[in-house]
């Protein structure tokens, strides 16, 4: 039976109250049959929803990826693999994708999964409410046809190279039409107590404490899943997540929740295992406000590039678990890096040249406002090092750490900053997460707040996102770097390397590029 939100005086709480009266009566929690063991994974907070079709919240994705599935999943090379779709065909012009759907799959409530669920999900949820996909689907003019119950055909008005890699459970989870149709989707009961086709079923949500999933006995990929339960324990303090791994209270902590200063210690711990490397490319960058008096001139931005010690940032901020920035798109996608115009060549550390560039830009010594999210300790260290670097060339940097929602308002709505420190990731393809950093935009959070607008860049970005040929795309991205590495609306400081950590008792983790996905094959020893 599914239960949500155990209320006030739930059993465990009631016990606490009874403790004072010396009573102790406590029924136990039910356990699922089949599979064995419970894996406890950390999250940082209650997710805003358990519907991945309407939110890109990390914890929502972490949990939903075990409950829901998508047409494809991405292996560690970001190559699409069959999931709810068993096969697919793409037309040569990249404008038609035809998916054959898996037969015999049922939702956790026993209803059959059909092509109607796929069409409903794209038309009514992702196309209207998904923070990433709504804009993508709209711009593609996607029309979904379902010639039969087990076929879904996507017709696009233009090609879109990352279409398949974006068909994952994080961007395109398939939701049950019979539970969402005709409802206010964000407020629908199934957005709080999800019903999916995935390896684990939602069991209960003890708000503030944990979310418990149990094994789906009717999963299509038998004998998986191997675990009896997965529990997401809410651990608000980052330091206590690494402590939890060491005390055995936690089994798995994703990179997103990991306090970076603790990583070297955890990576040396013999009882723990980790996966290190760039899996989902992510760049950390300093975005300049090109409309501010100081950074309106590109020479001022270039001066910063020559003054900031990027290798030092990697060592001191990321404890060496990153790579110094090389260009506008980092080096997470090896195929697009343009070594000819890399930062190493264009902007070697040189305080004298930086000062000369500043002088040419007409910098008058006025204070520079550097805005960043105060809740991220790495950004604070990063800001302090950059301030020190820039002081050496005569810039007066004032740090403005702001609470996250205030920072979003200041940077992306009001654009009241000179430099802001941010990080973006781009899962599977640069067009998914990095286009927004340089394309002309006037509003909206987490995109190009620099005010930089270059029609040539917009044109190249659009073509790079749609060209079906990889070589052509690489050429376009290289051409973009020629312009962007020169204009520097943002200076990429480093490419983050993710480190996911788990106890050695857990096996079968990390078969996908996204550590949150593909848990059907996970096992645990000794519990």
């Amino acid at each position, binding site marked *: 039976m599914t239960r949500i939100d155990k209320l006030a005086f739930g059993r465990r709480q009631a016990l606490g109250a009874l403790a004072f009266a010396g009573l102790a009566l406590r029924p136990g929690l039910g356990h699922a049959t089949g599979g064995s063991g419970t894996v406890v994974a950390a999250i940082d907070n209650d997710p805003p929803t358990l519907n991945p079709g309407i939110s890109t919240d990390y914890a929502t994705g972490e949990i939903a990826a075990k409950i829901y599935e998508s047409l494809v999943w991405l292996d560690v090379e970001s190559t699409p693999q069959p999931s709810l779709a068993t096969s697919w065909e793409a037309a040569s012009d990249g404008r038609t994708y035809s998916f054959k759907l898996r037969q015999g799959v049922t939702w956790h409530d026993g209803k059959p999964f059909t092509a109607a669920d796929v069409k409903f999900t794209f038309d009514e949820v992702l196309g209207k*409410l998904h923070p990433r996909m709504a804009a993508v689907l709209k711009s593609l003019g996607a029309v979904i046809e379902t010639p039969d119950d087990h076929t879904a055909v996507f017709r696009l008005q233009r090609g879109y190279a990352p279409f398949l890699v974006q068909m994952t459970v994080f961007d395109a989870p398939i939701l049950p039409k019979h539970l969402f149709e005709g409802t206010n989707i964000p407020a629908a009961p199934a957005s709080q107590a999800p019903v999916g086709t995935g390896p684990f079923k939602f069991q209960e949500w*003890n708000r503030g404490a944990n979310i418990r999933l149990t094994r789906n006995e009717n999963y299509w990929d038998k004998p998986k899943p191997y675990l009896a339960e997965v529990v997401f324990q809410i651990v608000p303090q980052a330091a206590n997540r690494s402590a939890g791994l060491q005390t055995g209270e936690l089994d798995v902590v994703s990179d997103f929740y990991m306090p970076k200063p603790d990583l070297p210690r955890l990576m040396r711990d013999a009882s723990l295992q980790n996966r290190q490397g760039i899996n989902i490319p992510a760049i950390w960058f300093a975005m300049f406000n090109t409309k501010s008096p100081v950074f309106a001139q590109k020479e001022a931005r270039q001066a910063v590039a020559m003054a900031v010690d990027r290798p030092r940032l990697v060592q001191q901020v990321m404890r060496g678990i990153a790579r110094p920035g090389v260009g506008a798109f980092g080096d997470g996608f090896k195929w697009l890096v343009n070594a000819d115009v890399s930062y190493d060549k264009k902007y070697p550390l040189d305080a004298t040249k930086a000062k000369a560039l500043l002088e040419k830009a007409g910098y008058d010594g006025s204070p520079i406002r550097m805005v960043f999210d105060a809740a991220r300790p790495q950004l604070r260290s990063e800001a302090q090092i950059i301030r020190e670097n820039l002081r050496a060339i005569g810039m007066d940097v004032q740090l403005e750490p702001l609470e996250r929602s*205030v920072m979003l308002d200041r940077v992306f709505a009001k654009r009241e900053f000179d430099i802001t420190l941010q990080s973006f990731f781009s899962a599977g393809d640069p067009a998914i997460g990095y286009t927004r950093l340089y394309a002309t935009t006037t509003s909206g959070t987490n995109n190009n707040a620099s005010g930089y607008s270059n029609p040539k860049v917009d044109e190249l970005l659009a073509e790079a996102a749609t060209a079906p040929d990889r070589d052509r795309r690489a050429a376009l991205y290289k051409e973009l770097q020629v312009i962007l590495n020169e204009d520097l609306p943002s200076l990429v400081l480093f490419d983050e390397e993710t480190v996911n950590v788990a106890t050695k008792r857990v096996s079968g983790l990390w078969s996908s590029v996204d550590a949150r996905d593909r848990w059907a094959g996970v096992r645990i020893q000794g519990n």
Partner: protein
Amino acid sequence: MWFVARRLLHAVPLLFCVVVLNFVLIAATPGDPVTILVGDFPAPPGYVEQVKREFGLDQPIYVQLMRYLGHVLTGDLGYSFANRQPVSTLILGRLAATLELTLTALLLASLLGIALGMLAARWRGSWLDSGVQGIASTGYSIPDFWLGQLLILVFSIWLGWLPSQGNMSVRGAPEGFAGFLDHLRYLLLPALALSFRYLALIARITRAAMLEVLSADFILAARSRGASETSVMITHALRNAAAPVITVIGYNLGFILAGSALIETVFGWPGIGRLLFDSISRRDYPVMMAILLMVSVTVVLANLATDILHRAIDPRVGDR
């Protein structure tokens, strides 16, 4: 009775002002709840508008305030847009955990604080007195969230005796009495961390009050009548020294409740304090308003209860 009724009547305009002031202050805080709600990527404008309309965030502030006041007067605390639940449901779901933590902390602080204060007063100038005064100074100056981290480091990581997070075992949770003991293991560290500051305060107040009383003539008289030292300390001295101690305990209930926000966050304890902390970071206005109102009501009631108790213990305090 008149005293109680008068005090409760006085509380009405006070609570009204608290609600209005909280609403205005929260509304004036920069930051947008919709941005937090929809996630990190640029959300479609249509969706943002839909969310704003759904929660009335597209209305002017004074309209929102009037609506809110109307709802509160009918007992409706609103709807949490970050949690997609009625606020009263959310708060009720967390209340037991916070009461459990704060009452345990208050009990620990009161019992240990009074005992240490009495011992220090009885053996004034001894090493015991110095020790208690040392604990009192330390306890009063250490931030409780830092103490919490320290306790986790020592008792969870180094010694491995107690769990660091949550309020129950999440796998293989024991049943019956063993389950109760398991729960106590989770309660101990956060309760200690939360109580230490108040333990220190109560010990200092008790010591000072006891020293004053112990030098009074009636104590000398009791001793000369041959009363045992235990009887002198508890029946005669403590009872007469109790008034300021009770005042301090009662008046600090609100602070303990407010202080639980950080301790619950440090220990992952699923209570009201954590809910407040999370609601602030998510700009979940209805939940913030309701919790602040609840804390205000608790402070008013705790102060009233303290005054009533004060009158019961000390007959010299009466109606004026």
